[in-house]
């Protein structure tokens, strides 16, 4: 465990990583990352491009699993649970640990369908409820006023910045179903400043 913490002793930690090493095949990308990330706070990772901020974030919801030949050594605890323990439900984990990618990637569907995507695959069929979730998520991502009149227009027609906020709304839309603390856990990477927020 991390011994020298900059945080007060009684502060609740949501993520703890212990000597995390990450490899893309033979190339090591992360070296002994031991971090504490407190709950209900915004934590920012800052570093030059290519230093591994996104790689680290992708370890947190095991998105790196999709990269062939990649390997993680070390432990990551989210809410006291080791997410790399055998038998971990990765799909469940990703529901709780949302992620917005550096490069905006809206689906070529309508704005509504983009935001409703997560709730829908998790079984929400009620249209009224979906409409509520979509509006709430779009408001939280500060894009509601810009798109409320064209929810059924294709998301690819939005500007770059709007697309990114739509992606944030889409990630938020999965949240309300997860445990109380997880809705606070929304990592995304931003262009300005070049760093990653958790």
């Amino acid at each position, binding site marked *: 465990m991390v011994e020298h913490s900059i945080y007060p002793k009684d502060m609740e930690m949501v993520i703890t990583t212990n000597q995390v090493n990450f490899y893309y095949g033979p190339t090591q990308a992360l070296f002994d990352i031991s971090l504490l990330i407190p709950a209900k706070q915004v934590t920012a990772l800052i570093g030059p491009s290519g230093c591994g901020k996104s790689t680290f974030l992708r370890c947190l919801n095991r*998105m790196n699993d*999709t990269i062939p030949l990649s390997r993680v050594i070390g432990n990551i605890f989210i809410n006291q649970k080791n997410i790399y323990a055998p038998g971990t439900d990765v*799909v469940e984990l990703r529901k709780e640990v*949302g992620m917005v*990618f550096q490069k905006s990637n*809206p689906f070529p569907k309508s704005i509504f369908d983009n935001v409703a*995507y*997560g709730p829908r*695959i998790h079984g929400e069929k009620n249209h009224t409820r979906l409409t509520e979730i979509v509006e709430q998520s779009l408001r939280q991502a500060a894009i509601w006023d810009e798109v409320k009149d064209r929810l059924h227009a294709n998301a690819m027609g939005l500007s770059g910045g709007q697309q990114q906020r739509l992606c944030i709304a889409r*990630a938020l839309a999965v949240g309300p179903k997860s445990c109380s603390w997880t809705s606070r856990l929304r990592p995304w990477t931003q262009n300005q400043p070049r760093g990653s927020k958790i």
Partner: protein
Amino acid sequence: MNNTADKFILLFLRLITYAIVVVIGYILFDIIKNGISALNWQFVSSFPRRSGAEGGIFPAIIGTFYLVVGTIAVSLPLGIGGAIYLAEYADQGKFNSLVRLAIITLAGVPSIVFGLFGLGVFVLFCGFGPSILAGSLTLACMVLPTIIVASEESLRAVPKGFRDASLALGATKWEMIRTNILPYSMSGMITGSILGIGRAAGETAPILLTVAAFYLPRLPKSVFDQVMALPYHLYILATQHPEADRIRHMQYGTALILLLLVLGLSLGAILIRTHFRKKFRW
């Protein structure tokens, strides 16, 4: 100097391209010129008489239609399923490279070999006899490589961002494929498949031994019946018929109908593609 070379290359490439158009244009012109006189409602709607020297080609049209439908029904699910496995699930290991190699090799197998394979496996071993079923299965085997390769390409063309986003939202792999890969790759898969099937519709060798009847002026009652088919009928009229020289218009008419059928399939492919392109553009 460079400029001259550039102009020369441009001229050369342009000539080659035009040459292709000339060849296709000539074939079409020849067939239409000689076949249009045979075309009338009676030709496409009535049964042949006197071994096909008179009457129409209705049973051959129906036969080819059934074969195309059968081929689609068998090859599309198999081919698309295989492509999904290869593009989304299979690793890059030795075994899967071997599978890929087998598929490419299969694409290069001559059609008469498929015919003999169909005769051996479907007609004799499975005991289907010469039938629509055996013929469709044989044609399906022949177009499978085309469908798999076209579908795999089309699946791989879906940007990684869509996959990542789906997974990060908590979709399982199959949910991701179903909701965010298949809809976007559908146009490419269907277009490639239909073009392959259109090609199969005009094949003679695979159906020669597995389904096609020389002269059968009635309609099939089940999938275990033989049928006439346009390419085989054309082959018979042009080379095996005792009055081959006298019935040129019948031959050209049959060729024209076959062309129209394949053209119809391609047109269908184009319509499907435009529909999906409009729906999902990125």
